[in-house]
Every structure is written in C-alpha cells, then in structure tokens.
C-alpha cells in the first residue's frame, strides 16, 4: 500500500468525554511525533466523535469499513463500545488495537486474532487486591456500581485479596449522593475501602467520603478512579489515595520520559493520563507493525502477526502479548501526592504485580 | 316518584373536600318529560349532571335508566345505555368542520371505533346519519364551516347535535341558552321543543322564560338539596324558591 488509514472512534462528547479527550491528545501527539507517517507510509487518520453510545459506534465502524476502508481501528473508551464494534471489525479482518477497554469476553471465549488489548479490565483490581494484602488490610469494604462490569471489577479485586470483606456495596449507576453508603462504611469500620466508581461517580464518592469524616480510612482504587483527570477535579481529598495501573507518568523509561515531556510541552504542562499514554502507544504499535510488514498492510494476517510481536518501545516498559493478545506486563502502585510545584499527581511507589497475565487467557481458544 | 320512571336517581351524594355539593338528591324523569333543574349559582346543578353522566364519581347513591343500573358504569357506557349530555361550556371540536364533528358523533354509535384499516370517508351510512343530524339542528347549511368559527348559537346547536347522535332516551342539557341573544334563544327553545318527541330531557337553565315555556316539571336545588319539585305554576308560586332563586321581580 502507499498509505495507511487509521480509523479512530473519538469519545469526546457524552459520558466519557474527558477520557476521550485525553485519548485524542495522545493520538495527536503520537502522529505529530511520527511526522504524519506510520511505518514510513503517509498516514491518513479519520476521527469521528460517536458520543459514547455503542449503537452509534456500530454505525461509525460501518462507515469506516465500507466508506473509508480503514486499515486499523482504535479509539472507543468504554467496554460496551468495544464489544459492539468488534464483530464487524473482526469479520473484515481490520486490526482493532484497543486504546483502553479490555473486556473479559475478548480476553477469553471471544478472543480474536485481530484484537489487541492494553490491559484486561480486572487486572487493575487484581493488583489492588494484592496491594491490600501487602498493606495488611484485613477487613475491607468494597464498592462498585450495580452493573456486571462493576461486579467484574470487584471479583477481580477478590481474586487476589486474602483478607475479609466487611461489606460489598453496589451503588446506583450515575448516583449523586453517597451519604447512605458512607454511613454504612462508617458503621462497618473497615481497615480500608476499595472502590471502582468510574467518572463522576468516583468524584462524588471521594469528595463526600472525605467530607464525611472518613479521611482516616485509606482508599484503594484501580487507576482509572485516581488518574490525573479525577485528581484535577477532586483536589486535596485525593491525597494519599493508593491506586494501581500498568503505567504511570513518572515511570523511568526513556520512551516514557520522552512522551511525558512532549505531552506536557504540547498541552500546557498538564500531566498525561493513562488514556493518553495508551493512545500514544497504540499509534506507536501501528507504526511498528506497518514497518515490520514492510508496508504490505493488505496482508492482514501478517499485520496481526506483527502487532502480536510488538517491536516498539512502549511507554509502559517491556511487555509481551499472551495467547489472547492481552499483554503480560507489570502493574504499578501509585499514590496521589504533590509534585515539586505542589501540584497534585500520582507518584510511583513500586511494582505490585510483575509480568502479570489476566485470568481469562485460559478460556481463549486461539 | 313512580317505579316506572324512565330515569331514577336515589340518594346521590357528592363531596368536594368539606363541601357537600350534592346532598342526598332523589330525582326522577319520566318518559317524554322535560324536567328542568334550577337553583342558585353553586347549588350543585352541574355537579348533579356530572354525577349522572359519570364525569364525576359518586360518593353515594344510585342511578338507573329504563331499569338499567348505571351506578357503576363509565361515562361512555352510560351513553351506550341511552344517556347523553351537553356541557355548560360549549364543547365541540373547534378545529374540525361541522361535518367532521357530526361524523365523529355518528361513528360512536354505529359499529366499532377500533377499525383502522378502512377509510371512514367510504362509509355512506355514517354520512347519512351526520346529514340527518345536521338537518335536525338546522346546520345543514354550515357543514363545511370550521366549527370554532361558527357563531355561538350555531356551536350550541352543534353541541346538541353531537349529543343526539347517541339517540338518547334521556338528554342532559346544561344551560343550553347560555350566551345566546333573544333570537338564538328562541331557536334553541324551538329545537328543544322538537326533541321532546325523541327523548326525555333534563334541562338546567337560568333563562326562566325558556324554563317556564318548556318544562313539564321543575326541580329546585339549593345547597345540594332538592328544595322543591313540581309543575311550573307550583314553582313560580313557591315562596322559598322566590326567595333563594327567582327573586321578586321576575323578568318577563
């Protein structure tokens, strides 16, 4: 081929607008860095906002496949969008490099040679569970919204957590007020609280949790609930919150240092989030794969094979793909702290899980 | 009150909060009778009509028409049973033509209104019924006028025509003369007189000329109760009725 076309499903309006915007900034930065080329070929990037609705994402992917004839796909933030668009992409053999969601079906029974994850959804929680053990928390309360993904996250936590559960609280989706739950937590007197509450729910929860006088009970969360976007919105109450992720901006790796510096330069000194990092990595992965197949991207199988053996320097450090095309990689412990300028941000504390693989790989027949 | 009365209401009660708007009212209307209901403002006349037609739920009492028990029936079922009404405020379909109004009324009483696959305009019988109704109330010349733009008197007549489509045995008229000048009032009186042959009528009206001209029997309501009931002369001469309602200098 003489050019590469990447379709990006932007998520910059709707419920995941903030995360989608982070992704977009990561994509833009990477493409800029590569001088508008991918694997040496001129790159054409088509980006469309689909407003976070999986049904609209399905429409969008149809257009990308049939009208734009894309070679690679990436972009949606939410698992449901990823699950919605997968079948069409897989049928067309267009590689889908996830820039965020890592739904369990694609890690297990529905694993597909054309899907590539960045992490499996539960692995963050598994890391948090391990962390809780290491911190010596014996009695915990765990909180998540009442939908299957919420339960998955709590199950992920329970998979490695060895202590006792004082309570397992499921909140309403989109809840504003958490007084009742906070009272329950206070009554349970746990050593620590683990919560998975994405977006506004997490912001509401942490603010009210601290305001409710439970500052002394440590909070543990998967990285999504304590990333820069949330920190920036919640402020001081985030201080000291432990969270886990497969990447952090102060990870001392040349590729990462370069990325973070470039990002902060381009975007007014803002720290990148994990979403920006993954978007950046996604473009880098495509770049490497195109180069590895010598520009013959028509050979989809070869492209998929090349993607499966990543030959680029990832901002998260070394990783390899498992059988299910989900990475085997490290998970880090971060804590919300102040940087040199007094800005709140995550600080790397250490590695919680090394070369960790997700729990679903066994179900994958690939 | 004979057992053979066409319509009988026994012990009707209606409360609005603390207000006893209808206070154990007994009322009977005989076949072919025009029975006028008069009484001071707020005496409970419209309320009574609403109770009879089923627009308001009863708090007590029972109703029957021609031996059929009406008490538990919904408004439209009462219409089916032969009880039809007009409203105190003219209530026609103002955006439709007179013809459409009449067709709508006719349709309610000829076949099912749940048919949705065939055009109504193809039904000749409905058209005939509508035209006959228009003829009855003298609106045949205004079939294609939009009902809302008709003069008030004509709208009133249309209202009556809509009620007549049910071929009622008892027709409830709530102030049919309201808002009419002398000329239209005379026409309405003539129309009601004409209807006497078709149906019994319970007539509420403050126009005493019309009431005394039309009514076979008059019942007077006051504070939700029947104060007096009898023929026109009896009512005219009734001192209490004069005091609470007619006043001393009755208009011509």
């Amino acid at each position: 081929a003489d050019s590469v076309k990447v379709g990006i499903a932007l998520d910059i309006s709707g419920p995941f607008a903030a995360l989608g915007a982070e992704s977009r900034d990561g994509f833009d930065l990477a493409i800029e860095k590569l001088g508008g080329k991918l694997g040496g070929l001129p790159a054409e990037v088509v980006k469309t906002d689909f407003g976070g609705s999986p049904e609209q994402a399905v429409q969008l992917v149809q257009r990308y496949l049939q009208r734009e004839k894309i070679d690679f796909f990436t972009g949606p933030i939410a698992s449901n969008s990823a699950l919605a668009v997968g079948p069409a992409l897989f049928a067309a053999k267009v590689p889908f490099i996830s820039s965020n969601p890592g739904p369990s079906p694609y890690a297990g029974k529905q694993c597909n040679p054309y899907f590539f994850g960045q992490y499996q959804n539960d692995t963050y929680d598994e890391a948090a569970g391990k962390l809780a053990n290491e911190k010596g928390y014996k009695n915990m309360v765990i909180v998540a919204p009442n939908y299957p993904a919420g339960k998955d996250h709590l199950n992920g936590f329970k998979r490695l957590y060895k202590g006792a559960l004082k309570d397992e609280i499921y909140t309403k989706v989109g809840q504003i007020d958490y007084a009742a739950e906070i009272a329950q937590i206070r009554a349970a007197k746990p050593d620590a609280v683990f919560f998975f509450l994405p977006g506004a729910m997490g912001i509401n929860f942490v603010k009210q949790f601290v305001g409710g006088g439970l500052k002394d009970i440590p909070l543990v969360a998967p990285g999504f609930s304590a990333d820069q976007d949330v920190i920036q919105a919640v402020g001081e109450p985030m201080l000291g919150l432990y969270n886990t992720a497969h990447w952090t901006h102060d990870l001392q790796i040349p590729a990462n240092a370069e990325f973070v510096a470039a990002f902060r330069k381009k975007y007014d000194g803002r720290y990148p989030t994990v979403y920006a990092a993954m978007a950046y990595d996604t473009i880098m992965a495509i770049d490497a794969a195109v180069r590895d197949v010598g520009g013959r991207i028509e050979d989809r199988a070869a492209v998929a094979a090349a993607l499966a053996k990543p030959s680029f320097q990832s901002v998260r450090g070394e990783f390899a793909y498992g059988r299910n095309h989900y990475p085997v990689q490290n998970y880090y412990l971060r804590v919300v702290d102040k940087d040199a300028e007094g800005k709140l941000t995550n600080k790397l504390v250490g590695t919680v899980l090394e070369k960790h693989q997700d729990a679903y790989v066994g179900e994958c027949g690939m | 009150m004979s057992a053979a009365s066409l319509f009988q209401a026994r012990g009707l009660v209606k409360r609005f909060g603390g207000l006893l708007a209808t206070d154990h009212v007994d009322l009977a209307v005989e076949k072919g009778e025009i029975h006028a209901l008069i009484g001071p403002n707020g005496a409970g006349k419209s309320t009574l009509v609403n109770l009879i037609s089923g627009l308001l739920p009863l708090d007590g009492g029972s109703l029957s028409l021609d031996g059929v028990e009406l008490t538990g029936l919904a408004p439209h079922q009462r219409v089916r049973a032969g009880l039809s009404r007009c409203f105190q405020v003219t209530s026609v379909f103002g955006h439709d033509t007179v013809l459409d109004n009449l067709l709508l009324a006719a349709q309610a009483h000829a076949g099912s209104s749940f048919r949705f696959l065939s055009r109504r305009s193809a039904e000749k019988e409905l058209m005939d019924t509508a035209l006959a109704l228009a003829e009855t109330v003298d609106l045949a010349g205004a079939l294609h006028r939009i009902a809302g733009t008709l003069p008030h008197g004509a709208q009133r007549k249309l209202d009556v025509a809509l009620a007549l489509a049910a071929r009622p045995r008892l027709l409830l008229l709530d102030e049919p003369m309201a808002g009419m000048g002398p000329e239209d009032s005379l026409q309405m009186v003539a129309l009601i007189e004409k209807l006497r042959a078709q149906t019994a009528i319970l007539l509420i009206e403050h126009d005493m000329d019309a009431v005394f001209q039309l009514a076979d029997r008059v019942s007077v309501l006051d504070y939700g109760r029947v104060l007096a009931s009898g023929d026109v002369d009896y009512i005219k001469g009734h001192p209490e009725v004069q005091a609470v309602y007619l006043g001393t200098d009755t208009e011509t």
Partner: protein
Amino acid sequence: MTQSERIAPSATVPARRFDAAGILPWAVFALLAAVPLIAPHFGLEYYVGFVRHMLIVAIAATSLNVILGYGGMVALGHAGFVGVGAYAAVALVEAGVGSAWLAWGGALAAGAVFAALTGAVSLRTRGVYFLMITLAFAQMLYYLAVSLRTYGGDDGYGLYTPLSLGWLDGVHGDVFYWVVLALAALVFALASRLAVSRFGHALMGIRDNETRMAALGYPVYRIKLAAFTGAGALAGLAGGLLASHNAFVSPSLMHWTESATLLVMVVLGGRGRRWGAPLGVAIWYTLAEVLKINTEYWHWPLGLMLLLVVFLAPRGVAALFERRRGEG
C-alpha cells in the same frame, strides 16, 4: 343551495388531493428500493446500512407519531419499547431461535405486552404526568437492563451470527435492507391509513377533547390503550430490527435521551403529519452524520436547527412542505 351542492366540494377535493399525494410515497419507495443497487457504483455501500438504520428508526418514530401526533399522548419512554423489542430478540436468540422472523415477531409481541402493561397504568394520567410516568417505566427498564448479567448488562450483548430470513437469505446480499424497507413502508402505509380510519378519527377526537369524546360514548381509555399498545408493538419491532441491524444490543438504546431524541425528531418533522416522522428522522440523522464527519463540535448546530424549527416552522418541517404544495 341544495344539499348535494353543499357536500359536493368535500367529495371532490380529497379525490384530487389523493392523486398528487398518492404518487409521492411510491416514488420515495422506489427511490429507496434502488439504493442498494445504485450505491455500490458510486462507492457508497456504507449508505445502504445508513439508510437501513434510518428506516428502522423511522418505524419507531412513526409509531410515536401515532400516539403523539394523532393521540396527543406525549410519551417520553418510547425508547423503552424499542429496548424491550431489542432485548426480546436477544432473549430469543439466547434461547436458540435462529429465525429473524421469529425474533422480530417476539420483539413486536414484547413491545405490545410491555406497552399494554405500562399503558394501563400510565394512561390514568395526562399531560406532563403522562410524560413523566412513561419516562419512569423506561428508566426502570434501563436500570434493569444495566444490571442484568444474562444479557451483558451495561456491556451489551452481541449477536454474532446473523439471524436467518428463511428462503430470502440466498436472494441477495442486501435482502435485509429490502425487508426493512418493506416493513417500514408497511408501517408508513398503516399509519397513513390509520389517520383517515375510524380509529384515527376517534384518536384525534380524544386528543382534541377527551371529556367530550367520553360523553359521545367513546371508550376513551380503551382506545388510547389500543393505540399505545399498537405503537409499543411497532416500536418493539423497530427494536428487534435494530438488534439485527447493529448485531448488538445495549441498555443505552433505552436511555432517556434516546426517548427524547425520538420525540424531538417527530416534532421536528411534524407531529400528526403523515410525513412528519420519516422526515424528522431523515433530517436529524443526515445532519448529525454530516456534522460529525466535519467537526468535533457537532451538537450545537443541531441545537440551533431545533431553535430555528421551533420559531420558523412551529408545526414541523412537513407542515412547511404541505403549505408550499398548497400554495403551488
């Protein structure tokens, strides 16, 4: 004036109008039927699916137009019916059904049953109360679907093997498109006919003056419930079709903003107008598609358009055309 003279105009006017207006649906139908045959020649295959989607949404919008436009029932829970249909189809697939007809039939039935049940309660209220109670039922469904694991909850449910259309399967790659078109045309014809039928007249009478209709002897509640149930059935069918079309179903189908968008499309097109629903859907989707391709800020122009419609075409875009045609 004799009587026959007086009725004459009404007898001729509709007949003449019928000719002019009667051609239009067939022309549109033919044009839409040709889309899959023409589009590939211009590299526009994608728009086959796009139009198919609009046709499905137009079915849902038309069903809303029946209760909203003709019946005066302002419902804000229509996406709930669509969702029920979609999930019914999914449930049948999960239970091993492979036939599209069965799945869609199930969707239709589920929409009808759900509408009948919720309608029985909702129709006791009017106006904004009705709007809110229909919303409440749709929201209950939404949260139920979000938390229900069997069908994927929030993650949704993928239909990975396409449903079978029976012997039609082998006919042509785009046969699903034509099936949808045929169903949409049927629904459109049904709604158009309904408007001039006894039932439609009764429904419009109820819209204009419910009390009077009861006093005329109409079983108002039953008529409204019948219309509501019918609309629910058609919306359910649209949901079933949508499940096939997207090969995916998720609760976001039932989010209240989807109900609001349906409402907005119908009002935009012209409520109670024959062409209102399809026109509204076509305008909304086309505009959104064009805007999304061209800008990240694609919401506000849609908002502006709504404002313009409210003030410049208060009875909807379809009314605008009707008047033009009347003048011309």
